[in-house]
């Protein structure tokens, strides 16, 4: 297969020293194996996420994502924009669609962008990395690269909210998407197909402001994974990953549970299966160690 190129929007949490830095490490390893070249959008800014709404009104928020699209058009013309973070993807795709649907909004946005000498057309596709994997490669092709099948590991596919709604992955349902399970299977591991919390919200950004309410949701997400017999949880979303991994001690203290459930990215699983070492797969970024993956990566 020839090299594939995309205009890449990494997003804040993937930066060096940020909460999803390990996501980026494993994405790099995965892309190297698949011969994917990610051309970072120069000087990209934050997408304003969903929580930006109180401070920023509609237009300022759209304008922030439009700036990224405009910079992408300049530097990487003709390339699809690809994001690894669910919130980045959602905000950018929503902006792209709304600018197209509404000429007035397009005009106002370009008026705002002109303050920095920019202009946006917004006619590119905005895609999540998972879409690239499934649509541009497909499970069969992805499976061909497996060098070390993840045999014997049981994994709960936690899709979460924003990788799934409102856009979702083509051909998948909102209530019971199966693509993570299929990816897990493709990597040689065993998906927990009856994992009923696969699209349950983790509280999102409100895990900061409404901790107790969010911990209650997160507890359910982890409990269901244990109930299904999972060894670990896999997710495509950096906020889901952080929320479900980081608060387990708090939840244990509050609810008298004994959770110690590793939460990894799909790209971590794939990197290990593709024969990368623990560091390349981002495994040293786990707060709760994924020992079974470490063992396979150490072979």
């Amino acid at each position: 297969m020839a090299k594939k190129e995309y205009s890449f929007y990494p997003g804040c949490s993937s930066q060096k020293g940020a909460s999803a830095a390990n996501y980026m490490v494993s994405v790099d390893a995965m892309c190297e194996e698949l011969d994917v070249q990610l051309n970072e959008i120069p000087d990209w800014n934050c997408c304003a996420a969903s929580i930006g709404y109180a401070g920023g009104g509609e237009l300022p928020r759209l304008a922030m994502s439009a700036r990224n699209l405009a910079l992408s058009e300049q530097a990487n013309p003709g390339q699809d924009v690809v994001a690894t973070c669910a919130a980045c993807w959602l905000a950018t795709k929503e902006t792209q669609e709304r600018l197209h649907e509404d000429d007035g909004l397009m005009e106002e946005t370009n008026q705002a962008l002109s303050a920095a000498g920019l202009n946006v057309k917004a006619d590119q596709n905005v895609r999540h990395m998972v879409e690239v994997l499934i649509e541009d490669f497909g499970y069969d092709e992805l499976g061909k690269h497996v060098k070390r099948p993840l045999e014997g590991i049981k994994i709960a596919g936690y899709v979460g909210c924003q990788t799934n709604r409102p856009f979702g992955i083509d051909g998948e349902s909102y209530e019971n998407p199966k693509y993570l399970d299929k990816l897990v299977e493709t990597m040689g591991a065993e998906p927990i197909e009856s994992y009923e919390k696969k699209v349950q919200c983790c509280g999102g950004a409100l895990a900061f402001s409404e901790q107790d309410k969010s911990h209650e949701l997160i507890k359910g997400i982890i409990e269901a994974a244990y109930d299904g017999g999972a060894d670990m949880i896999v997710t495509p979303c950096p906020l889901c990953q952080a929320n479900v991994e980081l608060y387990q001690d708090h939840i244990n203290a509050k609810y008298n549970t004994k959770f110690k459930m590793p939460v990894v990215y799909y790209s971590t699983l794939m990197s290990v299966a593709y024969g990368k070492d623990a560091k390349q797969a981002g495994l040293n970024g786990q707060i709760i160690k994924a020992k079974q993956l470490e063992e396979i990566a150490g072979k």
Partner: protein
Amino acid sequence: MSNLNTEMIEKYRNNFLKEVTANVEEGEWVKMCMQCGVCSGSCPFGPHWDHPPQELFMMIRAGKREEVLTSSSMWMCTSCYNCIVRCPRGLPITHIMHGLAHYADRLGMAPKEQPTMKFAHKFWDNIVKNGRVNELKLSLGVYFMNGIAEGIKTSLKMQAVGLGMYKAKRLNPMEFFGGHTVKDKSGMQAIIEKAKEIEEAKIKKFEG
């Protein structure tokens, strides 16, 4: 009462639905709600909403302006998008919740100590300043937003988490002294300023 609030009451008198239609993001959709209640059963923080989305829409139509705008309900929205994919009428409910929250805040009617409102403001200030999120300053700011004593308590609780993340190279203490930014800060800020200006001019226009 804020000036903008008084002006809006004058302008729209008893028609809160018209006010929402004109001024709230995606507010023109509210009248399309058929009160089936599907959205209300979809919110992850459901039990904590005084008035779930369907009820808010009914109250808007009934002209319960004060009750809607001072409610903490729409601040309970986690942006999970459950409602949007389920609503039989295709209402962009998530955006209407954000829009209502933003509008209430703009009018100075949002509940003063609403934690998500405070967090959302800190988040926005953080990105407007640097163009990118500074996670350390943001989280410290959040833990201390309820005062020093609460902040120290929360920080201590979070200390173990922070240390784990630091060891895993997922939290960089140096961020506190600067950290990640966009290069063209002034350009980005100019865009946001201009966008704000356009938006405010629009609300003024509705004022007539």
